[in-house]
């Protein structure tokens, strides 16, 4: 089974602190890591490889430092790594990101299965997976919390508002995964060594055969007009041990004010 995993390098939110004044995240000096859900995707890929044989390839589009994320993927057990890095790719929205990733999947494939995270912790769009699948004409499933490979296809369980939906997708297909899919493993020492040595193939615009107008900012249908940092302007009413009665009365008053106490008394 040939499996590809899309991995994105994101800022380490564990290290991010809040600026209490501005209500913004302090990202200075913050390290970067693999988007957590992409680790679940990679773990699933490695598990399937162990079960059915084959190879696991990790792909990432990003600045040159994204190579580190790919090396981490190799350390965890991926067989091959491809880095899409080119000035022309900068400023890509989800469409332009998906376009480049889909093109690379075509060039380095065919793959039986492509896995991605349901969403990344920085962009939080969750759009790249479905867009890549659609550009490649692959059937896909989102919000996957369980998956297994059978000869007849990939069986998945999607976690949705109403509960679960179970699907069988034929190969090749794409799935975006949630964190409760599995427990990502830590790299072993031998793995780390391999991760440092293994080759990461680099790809630029000309290697993909795409036009400059199809990628990066110029290939992006959307434009960011402005970015605002909303200040958290909440005035906290603090009630300690001695004035809890007043605190509770405050909460009840709020509920009343918002007309949330109207329903039938279920007492």
């Amino acid at each position, binding site marked *: 089974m040939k499996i590809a995993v899309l991995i994105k390098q994101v800022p380490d939110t564990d290290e*991010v602190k*809040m600026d209490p004044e501005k209500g*913004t*995240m302090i990202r200075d000096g913050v390290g970067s890591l693999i988007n*957590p859900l992409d680790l679940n995707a990679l773990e699933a890929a490695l598990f399937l490889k162990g079960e059915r044989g084959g190879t696991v390839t990790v792909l990432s589009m990003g600045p040159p430092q994204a190579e580190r994320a790919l090396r981490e993927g190799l350390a965890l057990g991926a067989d091959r790594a491809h880095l899409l890095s080119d000035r022309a790719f900068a400023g890509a*929205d*989800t*469409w332009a990101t998906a376009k480049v990733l889909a093109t690379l999947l075509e060039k380095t494939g065919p793959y039986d299965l492509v896995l991605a995270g349901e969403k990344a912790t*920085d*962009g*939080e769009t*969750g*759009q790249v997976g*479905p*867009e890549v699948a659609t550009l490649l004409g692959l*059937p*896909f*499933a*989102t*919000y996957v*919390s369980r998956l297994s490979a059978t000869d007849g296809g990939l*069986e998945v369980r*999607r*976690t*949705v*508002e*109403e*509960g*679960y*939906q*179970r*699907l069988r997708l*034929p190969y090749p297909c794409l799935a975006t995964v*949630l964190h409760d899919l599995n427990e990502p493993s830590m790299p072993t020492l031998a793995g780390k060594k391999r991760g440092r040595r293994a080759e990461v193939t680099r790809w630029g615009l000309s290697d993909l055969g795409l036009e400059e107008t199809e990628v990066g900012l110029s290939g*992006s*249908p*959307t*434009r*960011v*007009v402005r*970015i*605002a940092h*909303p200040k*958290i302007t909440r005035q*906290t*009413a*603090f*009630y*300690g041990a001695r004035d809890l009665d007043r*605190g509770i009365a*405050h*909460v*009840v008053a*709020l*509920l009343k004010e*918002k007309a949330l*106490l109207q*329903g039938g*008394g279920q*007492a």
Partner: protein
Amino acid sequence: MRTERNGLGGVFVVAEVRRSGIHSCTLELVSKARELADARGREVTAIVLRSPSEEPVEPLFRHGADRILLVEDERLGSLNAEVHSRIVAHLIGKGDAEIVLAPATTTGRTLLPAVAALIHTGLTADCTGLEIDAETGLLLQTRPAIGGNVIATIKTPDHLPQMATVRPKTFPVAPPQDRLGRVERPLLDESLFCTSVVCLGEESVEGEEVDIQGLDVIVSGGKGLKRPEGFRLLQELADLLEGAVGASRPTVEAKWISYPHQVGLSGKVVAPRIYLAAGISGAVQHLAGMQTAETIIAVNKDPEAPLFRVADVALCGDLYEILPRLIDAIRREKEERHD
């Protein structure tokens, strides 16, 4: 692209159809769509894809739709991303949509990216604000990013349609008006239904929908509950307020409660009118999922708990003492109202 399309078809809304019927977040979007369409002098079209049903679609007219494209087919009963997105792309293409909106639910967030890829246009995820730019007539789409710490405004200047998914509960449902519209049942080519994906089944969790994003009140619990039974107390409070129970990640990981309840970076992003957090410390990853709530109430025994910093009301003490007292106080208040 703009060159091939003119967008005269106006604003399209993709209805959220659940097993229980057309979800109320559809009405929120139709109401907003009405506003946007009026600003552009165009029509509002709602697309309803479902298996044959008796449920009336007229409420969509009363809240703003001029036209409903109704496709009923047994094969549309369960979401098939391939088929549904192909049909939506076909209908908005034929209708020459200028703007396409869908709720940012698991369904909308699955379908719209596929539609955007099929017709090559931009898509903004999880919007919390939409308006027409008076100067250019373009749709300005506002969305929080990085857990609500940044608010970005995005536009799609050169492609049509301009597409967005919108968080449920962002826009109010407009008061119903006495208006009607046209129901059209487009005939679709059989090829649009072609798929190799098989639905093996659907199950509800706990015998009911776990849809914490759609409610006015969320009562959430964290590790501070100390034991799984603590969620029963929260459920009692949530029931009293017709709300839902939310949870922090460690409680989900400890299997005290199921994943659909998780709030935060790797769970759901919610913006209810009241968010009450009990025994939750308020890590950045949790705040990312709830800090845009209208009012935040925090119960924690640690006066330094970071959650207190974003709370409107901070109740400092043992949740097992405070919550029962709060429940009593609410019951008393409700009874008085009924007497």
